[in-house]
């Protein structure tokens, strides 16, 4: 797969001792960032294809399974979650055992309902504010002021769980079945 080739090349370059320890020159560090970014960007295509295959829609013309990676989650910024009132969160477990984890996605609103697609469960979702210091990080171009936090339970080994996150106004928030 051509898109995987980018990762292979990055893997070769990043074994240099300066890349491991961070003792490369600044311009080289910036080039490493470029290589890794491009590899991650291409990885989105591989993930979309893989999920499409699992879902049996590999040959579908539907855009349903165009999956995006969120490379700026470390600064609480993510385009698909903060710009859409309804979005799907796909949690992939790379371990060979089931794992439960807390998912944290940046949003603009104050009320959200989370729904697990496969088992129909509504995990409890909580909104927490993104600290001001994070919002002020130089170069962070995000309109997210809050994060939705929920527990993704029992993600199967080497498998996925999909959650639909829906923005609500305060008036239409109703108790969801647990």
């Amino acid at each position, binding site marked *: 797969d051509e898109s995987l080739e980018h990762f292979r090349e990055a893997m070769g370059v990043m074994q240099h001792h300066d890349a491991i320890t961070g*003792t490369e020159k600044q311009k080289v560090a910036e080039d490493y960032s470029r290589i890794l970014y491009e590899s991650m960007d291409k990885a989105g295509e591989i*993930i979309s294809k893989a999920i499409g295959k699992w879902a049996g829609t590999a040959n579908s013309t539907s855009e*349903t399974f165009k999956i995006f990676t*969120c490379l700026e989650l*470390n600064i609480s910024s993510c385009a698909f979650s903060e710009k859409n009132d309804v979005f799907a969160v796909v949690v992939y477990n790379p371990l060979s055992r089931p794992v439960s984890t807390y998912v944290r996605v940046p949003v603009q609103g104050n009320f959200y309902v989370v729904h697990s697609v496969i088992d129909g469960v509504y995990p409890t979702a*909580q909104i927490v504010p993104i*600290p001001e210091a994070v919002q002020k990080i130089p170069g962070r171009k995000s309109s997210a002021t809050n994060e939705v936090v929920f527990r993704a339970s029992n993600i199967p080994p080497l498998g996925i769980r999909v959650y*639909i996150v829906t923005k609500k106004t305060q008036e239409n928030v109703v108790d969801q079945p647990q």
Partner: protein
Amino acid sequence: SDKFISNELYNISVNTNGNLAIRWNNQDMSVVQSFQYYTGAEGNNKISANRSSGAYIFRPKETSARNFAYIGSYKIYKGPVVEELHQTINDWVSQVVRIYPEEEYIELDWLVGPIPVKDKIGREIVTRYSSNLQTDKTFYTDSNGREMLKRVRNYRPTWDVELYEPISGNYYPVTSKIALKDEKNQLKLNVLVDRAQGGSSLEDGDVELMLHRRLLKDDAFGVGEALNETAFGEGLVARGRHHLFGGKVKGVDEFVLKEKELALKLALHPWILGTPVNSSNNLEDV
């Protein structure tokens, strides 16, 4: 309850110095977490004794770390999923401390930078976890995620060492975990890191980890540049996480198992991906 966050294992608050006080419930164990900084040595690089602190070497100018003047504040957010303590130390050091009802660890989400350098002083920022554990100069660091290696302060196992630089001479690489053990009281304290960091235990019961560095002189080891990274015209901001995990080691097997599960979960963390759901990409299809 607006002054602390807690679950059945811990109680976490901010003390008058602005440090984080963590008390284990029903156990004689406590930790105070603080942020400090070292000023980087500046030499003329003509002989090795005059080398500057830089990309290759950590060489603090002074014999101890400096405390930050606490001008910050904190806020607490509690809910059914997570309890968070948002703490600001100053304009460029802050953190979020999280505890989840279904997890045994404490998550410390630290944020450091841009480190100011207008005063022409290079700074190296550390966080220190000071516990009441009796550790007899001993601590443990991992070896690239493999076995834990025993480290003894001011000591090398194969020769008699006399350290001329007692801070950096006791620093070791921490790629996934640094740990303390109190054999007498059967207590353990582990800090799991999300990236390789330098770490040490400079006093009994303490764990110290280097978070971020901004230095103004090249250390003359070959890179030819000072470790002074910038982005968007300002010094870099570093954000990362520590997971604190500890307490009484009753069933050793159970403790090790939980610890390993957490380490694996952090090293191979689930990927968070997503897609907008709209009319052409409808909910039913998803």
